[in-house]
């Protein structure tokens, strides 16, 4: 597998020599988009199966076992086909344009974020020099889509879930951004590849341990995973903002949620764990391994912790994480100006 990855990477580098320039630019864009879409779909299918297996074993069950014979590997593919064949129900009372646009906004913003994710030194669709800001800016539009879904559904549970989503994501975005500032100070760049390049010797998790912890907590809250999944708490809100969505429209919310989880994991890898740096294996493999370590962490937390209450979650963000993030920033600044 690693050989074929290296071959593809080589082809990717040699492509500008093989094609004339305007054609090359267009071909590169097309190939990058198709590769990213294929990656998102395959990654999500795998991640859902992975989560169900891990959570099964944590709860002393087996998880999916029959579909596709080997440990139920085809279970998520079967689920996807089932969702594809389901009737597209749009309830009567909904605010139709808002309801229809919501999954579209969420999914499209998630895809756009993948423009800057550096899978290895060269496997990046476009290394924008303000990459991190781009990620945060675009992914916060997804909040709007989620809120549209909740508002447009004309369902009490959906609206409650959507209100909570807005409050939660907006609150946790502040410590999330502040925790990342320490990395900017060390790396002196906002380009994702530049930040990975700067961690060649020492990963930033060792220089910014507090920032790393804040980032992971705020990141998990940002993608609405347990213990912060209050917006879609099954036991009180049915399914939160996507209660009224079914079939393919629901599938796209689901796809975007898992794709967003991967974005958070990939950013943690880039900012703190040295991205694609690593011995022996090619960069792409290291990147995926590190990112899936975070995916595993999220599943592990889901299997371990109970859900927080809304007021606990909000006060934890504003009264603990935010001061801690400021403190981290001040200490980093002090240390850097005197050393």
């Amino acid at each position, binding site marked *: 597998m690693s050989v074929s990855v290296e071959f593809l990477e080589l082809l990717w580098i040699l492509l500008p020599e093989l094609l004339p320039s305007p054609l090359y630019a267009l071909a590169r*864009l097309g190939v990058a988009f198709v590769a990213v879409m294929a990656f998102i779909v395959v990654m999500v299918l795998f991640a859902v199966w992975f989560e169900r297996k891990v959570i099964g074993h944590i709860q002393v069950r087996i998880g999916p076992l029959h579909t596709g014979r080997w440990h139920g590997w085809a279970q998520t593919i079967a689920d996807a086909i089932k969702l594809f064949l389901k009737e597209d129900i749009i309830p009567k009372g909904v605010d139709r344009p808002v309801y229809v646009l919501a999954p579209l906004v969420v999914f499209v913003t998630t895809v756009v974020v*993948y423009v800057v994710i550096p899978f290895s030194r060269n496997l990046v669709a476009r290394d924008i020099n303000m990459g991190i800001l781009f990620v945060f800016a675009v992914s916060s539009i997804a909040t709007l889509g989620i809120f549209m879904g909740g508002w447009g559904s004309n369902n009490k549970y959906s609206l409650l879930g959507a209100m909570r989503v*807005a409050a939660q994501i907006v609150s946790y975005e502040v410590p999330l*951004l502040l925790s990342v*500032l320490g990395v900017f100070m060390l790396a002196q760049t906002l380009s994702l590849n530049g930040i990975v390049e700067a961690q060649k010797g020492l990963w930033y998790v060792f220089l910014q341990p507090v920032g790393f912890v804040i980032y992971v907590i705020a990141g998990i809250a940002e993608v609405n995973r347990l213990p912060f999944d209050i917006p879609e708490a099954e036991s009180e809100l049915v399914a939160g903002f996507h209660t009224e969505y079914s079939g393919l429209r629901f599938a796209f919310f689901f796809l975007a949620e898992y794709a967003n989880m991967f974005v958070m994991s990939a950013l943690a890898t880039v900012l703190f764990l040295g991205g694609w740096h690593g011995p022996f294996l090619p960069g792409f493999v290291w990147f995926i391994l590190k990112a899936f370590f975070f995916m595993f962490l999220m599943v592990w937390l889901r299997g371990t912790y109970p859900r927080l209450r809304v007021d606990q979650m909000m006060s934890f963000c504003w009264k603990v994480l935010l001061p801690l993030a400021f403190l981290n920033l001040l200490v980093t*600044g002090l240390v850097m*100006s005197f050393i």
Partner: protein
Amino acid sequence: MLLDLVYATAFALGGLAFLLFALFLGSLVRPHDPSGRKLTTYECGEVPVGQSWSQFNIRFYVFALCFVIFDIETIFLVPWAVVFKNIGLVAFVEMAVFIGVLLIGLAYAWRKGALRWAL
């Protein structure tokens, strides 16, 4: 810069096309029978009572205001963080004053009970 925008736009359009194409393909094979109780919104199996577009609790606005203040502050902090190493102590002191003022604001909001969720 222009190419960055081209990439972002192309990915957005591509994602849109992917979604619409999937919905179109699905419409060829899935059943279509909008009828009866299927079209009501879910409310624990009961017939929904009234509209659900209600008023928001005032605390959402308070938190939204706090968010706007701190998010704009972060926008000021980002360029500062990137060039910090070249300027050093002067930049640190100036930003410490700026953050200090905002932290006093946070302490004030805290004291006033604006950060308390449960009323």
